[in-house]
């Protein structure tokens, strides 16, 4: 327990913990096997407001700070990464609109998710992954409307959202400066979905293609100005990377919990395996990494609460925490031995869920580039502080 919690935070975490272990945890193995969740799976989360924890109260959110929101999402991540991810992706999309749009646009988006709906941030395309600037979806002005055409892929919440924040080119000839951001309601004519991806892990999180075919949106659905889309996306990513890392801390904590409990019960050579120093070393490394990851996430959240943009810190957090996540979940399987490799025990799922976090929301290689560029810029002006 690396953090100091206020009484209010403790009570909130306890409330969410009671709910999520009782109502959600028992359904996860079946959802993970099937690769999808029942349609009413998030209803109770909507009622509790978990999909809008950090959203200001004026837009129907919980009005929590980032630090407290992260604490709650660690708890959700402990039960299931995909469940937590679905909710995080919703408020991240809304937060992008709040940051870049007008209060009316924020309300437009929020009013669709507040009563019980999911949202999605729609950026990636088949030929535009790490190279986000190369996207091909277009939004062409036609009178008082924009007409969107294109196919987006790997969209978290793609098939289950009520509303999207979509990145499309208003000037196809221009590079990053030609990208703009639009609010698109999922029920507009011309919006359709591909099949839900049959993923290795994070199978409770919906991932699919979203197709826009002559989708018309009023001009007031343009968020920010034309050409601002890329910077909106980058700002949103700084923020969402830190939240992804908090889910990862939850998965790490779960891996540690499961491994320690198992090591205390599993008997070999006449004693519980936790009494063996080599097993202790595995567990000690897992505990150290989990604690360090939690502290790092917490500090980034504090920076965000203080209004910092966390370009470098968000990437550092995402890269380090998701790398440590691989190690911690793999070690959990190691502690379980052969039992860890079968679906009857809970840790193989954690290892499967973990991998995507090195890839999504910017691969860790892209994070290294972001950090490198930030250092280059930082030292240009500061000269190394001497």
């Amino acid at each position, binding site marked *: 327990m690396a953090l100091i919690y206020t009484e*209010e935070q403790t*009570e*909130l975490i306890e*409330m969410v913990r009671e*709910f999520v272990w009782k109502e959600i945890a028992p359904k996860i193995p079946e959802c993970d096997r099937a690769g999808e969740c029942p349609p009413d799976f998030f209803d*109770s989360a909507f*009622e*509790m*407001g*978990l999909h809008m*924890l950090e959203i200001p*109260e004026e837009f129907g959110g*919980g*009005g*929590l700070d980032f630090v407290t929101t992260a604490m709650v999402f660690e708890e959700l991540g402990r039960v299931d990464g995909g469940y937590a991810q679905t909710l995080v992706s919703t408020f991240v999309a809304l937060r992008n609109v709040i940051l870049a749009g007008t209060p009316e646009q924020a309300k437009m988006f929020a009013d669709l998710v507040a009563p019980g709906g999911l949202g999605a941030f729609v950026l990636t395309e088949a030929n535009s992954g790490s190279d986000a600037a190369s996207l091909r979806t277009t939004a062409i002005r036609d009178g008082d409307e924009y007409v969107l055409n294109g196919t987006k892929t790997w969209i978290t919440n793609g098939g289950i959202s009520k509303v999207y924040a979509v990145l499309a080119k208003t000037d196809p000839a221009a590079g990053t400066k030609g990208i703009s951001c639009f609010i698109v309601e999922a029920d507009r004519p011309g919006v359709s979905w591909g099949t839900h991806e049959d993923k290795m892990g994070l199978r409770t999180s919906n991932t699919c293609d979203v197709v826009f075919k002559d989708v018309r949106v009023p001009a007031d659905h343009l968020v920010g100005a034309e050409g601002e889309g890329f910077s909106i996306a980058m700002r949103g990513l700084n923020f969402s990377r830190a939240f992804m890392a908090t889910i990862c801390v939850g998965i790490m904590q779960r891996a540690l919990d499961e491994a320690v409990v198992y090591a205390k019960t599993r008997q070999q050579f006449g004693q519980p395996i936790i009494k063996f120093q080599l097993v202790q070393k595995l567990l000690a490394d897992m505990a150290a990494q989990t604690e360090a990851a939690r502290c790092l996430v917490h500090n980034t959240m504090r920076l965000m609460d203080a209004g910092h943009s966390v370009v470098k810190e968000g990437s550092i957090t995402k890269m380090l925490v998701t790398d440590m996540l691989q190690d911690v979940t793999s070690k959990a399987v190691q502690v379980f031995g052969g039992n860890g490799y079968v679906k009857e025990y809970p840790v193989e799922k954690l290892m499967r869920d973990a991998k995507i976090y090195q890839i999504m929301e910017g691969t860790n290689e892209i994070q290294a580039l972001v950090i490198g560029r930030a250092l280059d810029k930082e030292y240009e002006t500061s000269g190394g502080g001497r």
Partner: protein
Amino acid sequence: MKILVLVKQVPTDLGAVKLNEDHTLDRTAAGVQLNPVDKNALEAAVQLTEQLGGEVTVLSMGPATVKATLKECVAVGAHRGVAITDEAFAGSDAWATARVLAAAVRHLGGFDLVLAGKQSFDGGTGEVPVMVAELLDLPQVTGVTALEGAADALVCTQVLDGGQAKVQVALPAVVTVDEYVNTPRYPSVKSKLAANKASFDQLTNAELAVPEVGLAASGTTILSATRPPARQPGARVEGDTPAQVAENLVAALVAAHVL
């Protein structure tokens, strides 16, 4: 509709309750929670006011910690909470408790309906709401599994041996519910945070003026109290092959006169 819900703070972990030498219970190490079936009573009250309008007040007698329980109630829809806290009430049995609660209901006044869980998780006598109804001279329906509300009457369903009965009761009345009556809601983050700011009225015997209270007013005396015997561990049936395990299991069942 003005509804009062009687709620009790009970231990979370009955195993951690210690027996004092005078046969009273030391609950300090056991944690506290809102009595589970009281959540159903509160949910029923909140649903009735959502349908018919009105206000839900929760009332709880206990030590200063009952405020945490009242806060929990406000987070799931109670409009206000009242704590009855007075050292003089310590050691009250069901009768002494009911007298204080009845006095408080009268003192607060004006309720169309008093709801309660059918029994507590710790004492489990199921007597207190029944006694409160008698002391207030109100009609009562107990162990209700379904509730339909109207402005001046309630239709309550009770499960009987081999069937169920629907009972209409005129208001004001006392009704106790069981856990099948509804599924209590979870608090939302917003309501939970709002409940942190709630303040609660407090009543003591200075306001209620119940003549005899606490241990002295309790008609029952506990002569002895013991823990239930610890559960014996089960027997493990082993064998080298599944057939042998089955044979050993049958032999064990025969020896135990099960077969």
